């Protein structure tokens, strides 16, 4: 880095600290690093919820909902504004064990895309058991032993029918002795890659970045004067879709709506970045305008970002199932999404700049009346 670049970086850091409370820029990195290795998939969010709850300022009281979500109420005027992030990513569960000790897999929710399961082949995974984390791999045939035809089809035609998790045992009894049980969560082994340009990559990094930003907001708000009616929520089972007629909202988000009855909702979500018309990573969080007339809150967010000099992208990308849960009359819900490159792959890439800007915008909103 040149001296000019260093100076510019330092000025940006100083500005961000001024905009949203000293120390936050470093905090989101530290918090994300602490949260990243903690497995959390739909229906198995307990470990991450516990980690977040223990990382919050001690002067905040937390509530837990029946699915494992966390709620923090700030101020005394009820749930005027809800800021919500997802606590879960896509993962697997142990759905069976073979006699020779291999684990079979199923998904608790539908895959986000058709080829999603193919990323499993030949990859390290961790199983969250009652005895702790157990390491394993998804078996992959030795290449020497494959016919040319099977080499071609192995990945392209991979499905969970061909997924066997090897945990280094020879029997189901040995697997159980390690603590593995049916329904244990299975996720990719965390491997954080710090790229140039202050970008990080890893499995589930996008939603965990949202969790980290929200934890940072809790810290910022708790350190300042008492705000009016802000509720922060980390919702479990957001990747599960509620049953019923019409649109299929996120189950976790729908529960939070019914629990908290907020009037204004800011949803921290992820959005695919890097395509031809997709948002750009590193150019700021994304204000998603899925409808023709976005709520007033969207304008307030744009003004808060502009006033704080923080980057913000906006565009008419598809509405998130998180937002569908809040589409009732009389509520204003907006999605502020973190641009994620290679979303829902083992190497989701996020830019620290985007997280800092998102934290800054949320903090500015909480101070300047956006929350009223």
């Amino acid at each position, binding site marked *: 880095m040149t001296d000019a670049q260093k100076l510019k970086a330092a000025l940006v850091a100083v500005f961000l600290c001024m905009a949203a409370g000293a120390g936050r820029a470093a905090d989101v990195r530290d918090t994300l690093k602490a949260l990243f290795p903690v497995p959390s998939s739909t229906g198995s969010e307990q470990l991450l919820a516990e980690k977040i709850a223990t990382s919050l300022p001690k002067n905040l009281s937390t509530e837990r909902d029946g699915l494992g979500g966390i709620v923090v109420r700030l101020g005394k005027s009820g749930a005027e504004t809800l800021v919500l992030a997802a606590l879960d990513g896509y993962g697997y569960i142990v759905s069976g064990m073979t006699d020779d000790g291999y684990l079979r897999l199923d998904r608790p929710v539908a895959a986000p895309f058709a080829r999603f399961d193919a*990323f499993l082949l030949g990859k390290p995974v961790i199983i969250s058991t009652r005895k702790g*984390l157990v*390491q394993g*791999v998804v078996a992959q045939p*030795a290449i*020497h032993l494959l016919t040319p035809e099977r080499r071609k089809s192995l990945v392209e035609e991979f499905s969970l029918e061909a997924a066997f998790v090897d945990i*280094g045992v020879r029997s189901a009894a040995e697997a159980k002795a390690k603590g593995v049980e049916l329904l244990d969560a299975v996720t990719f082994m965390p*491997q954080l890659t710090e790229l140039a340009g202050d970008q990080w990559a890893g499995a589930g990094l996008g939603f965990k970045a949202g969790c980290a930003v929200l934890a940072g907001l809790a810290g910022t708000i708790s350190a300042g004067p008492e705000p009016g009616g802000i509720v922060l929520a980390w919702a479990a089972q957001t990747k599960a879709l509620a049953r019923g007629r019409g649109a299929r909202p996120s189950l976790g988000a729908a529960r939070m709506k019914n629990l908290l009855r907020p009037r204004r909702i800011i949803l921290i979500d992820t959005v695919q970045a890097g395509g031809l018309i997709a948002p750009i990573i590193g150019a700021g969080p994304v204000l998603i305008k899925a409808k023709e007339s976005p709520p007033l809150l969207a304008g307030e967010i744009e003004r808060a970002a502009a006033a704080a000099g923080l980057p913000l992208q906006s565009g008419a990308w598809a509405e998130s199932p998180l937002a569908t849960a809040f589409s009732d009359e009389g509520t204003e819900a907006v999605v502020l999404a973190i641009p994620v490159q290679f979303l829902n792959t*083992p190497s989701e890439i996020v830019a620290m700049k985007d997280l800092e800007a998102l934290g800054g915008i949320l903090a500015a909103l909480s101070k300047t009346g956006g929350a009223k």
Partner: protein
Amino acid sequence: MKRAALALMMSVLAGGAVVRPAFPQERPSAWSLLRQIVLIPGVSGHEEPVSDFIQKTLPAHLGAERDAMNNVWFTAGSGKPHILFVAHSDELGWVVDRITAEGRVKVKQGGGLLPQTCEALPVLIHTAKGAVPGIIAPRPGYDERRRENAAPQVYSSESFEILLGVSSEKDARDLGVSEGNPVTARKIIVDYSPAQMSTRAVDDRAGCAALLDAALRFDWTRLKGKTVTFAWDVQEETGLFGAAALAKVLKPDYVFAIDTFVSSDSPLESKRFGDLRVGGGAVVRAIDSSNITPKPQILRVLAVAREHGIPIQAGNSRGGNDGSVFVPGGAVDIPLSWAGAYAHSLIEKIDRNDLEALSALIQAVVKDWN
């Protein structure tokens, strides 16, 4: 879930134990040597760091030599027979071909790993300025449903685009990246237990480690009536080139290639051949794609193992070995091995007992083979 169990899991997480070796390293052993050497980058043609490690680990009195290709070897004793042990120090990987205007890295084809298993894979580009992390981009449209009747997508290593976090060729070059840099997967060691693990490049760093361990443990002052050479050769994965160079200067009577026995000990493979068990001991790789070891020689090795109480298996599988290039020159090739599951993947699996049995077997053969 019980609170105590949660607390236990959280304490494990707090220690970041997930991606670190879960078990402390003990005194130097074949296993601890493997855990070190397997993480050293050494793509075929770029084995210098591995050769450095081997040369540094060998005691000076063994008089190790090294050629321009980075083959390393030492010879002890004199007279006939001349017995050569050879393990290859290279690993599968890629080499930077070019950098795009957007700062993405394209690589030349590297054999051996299924490219489709490398989508979204973290890698390291080994530059003069140090290792630069990158991510192999998943194929374009990875999250889109393939149209019915659409032609299958061709996805090879030439399709790879490695993202570094920069947006221009200049920025990539400023990081130190340039054409010819070797690229490896960013390795994770998966510890199933203190005695079993999976990672990339067990083939053939396990062979290198077993040979190093044997070199360190054998009492070379007791070697009488034979010549023994231990060699760590290069460029096996791309065509046995290092072995071919050694074959010009070394004329052994017996060559023991130390390399993976491609085992079908997995739930996905036919057990028609390669069916030797991980954890079943050292292996005589009797027949593979490059060599057929005469039965009497196999029986001799089994007898040596029995004599020393070393667990051993013998079987046939696929793949080539470095010893085969010495056969036309008059050597008998008797590959020694371990049963390795998931060969040429990111999760090559090995058992500690097998590795230590292999080291013991090498030492026993050095002592008893005439």
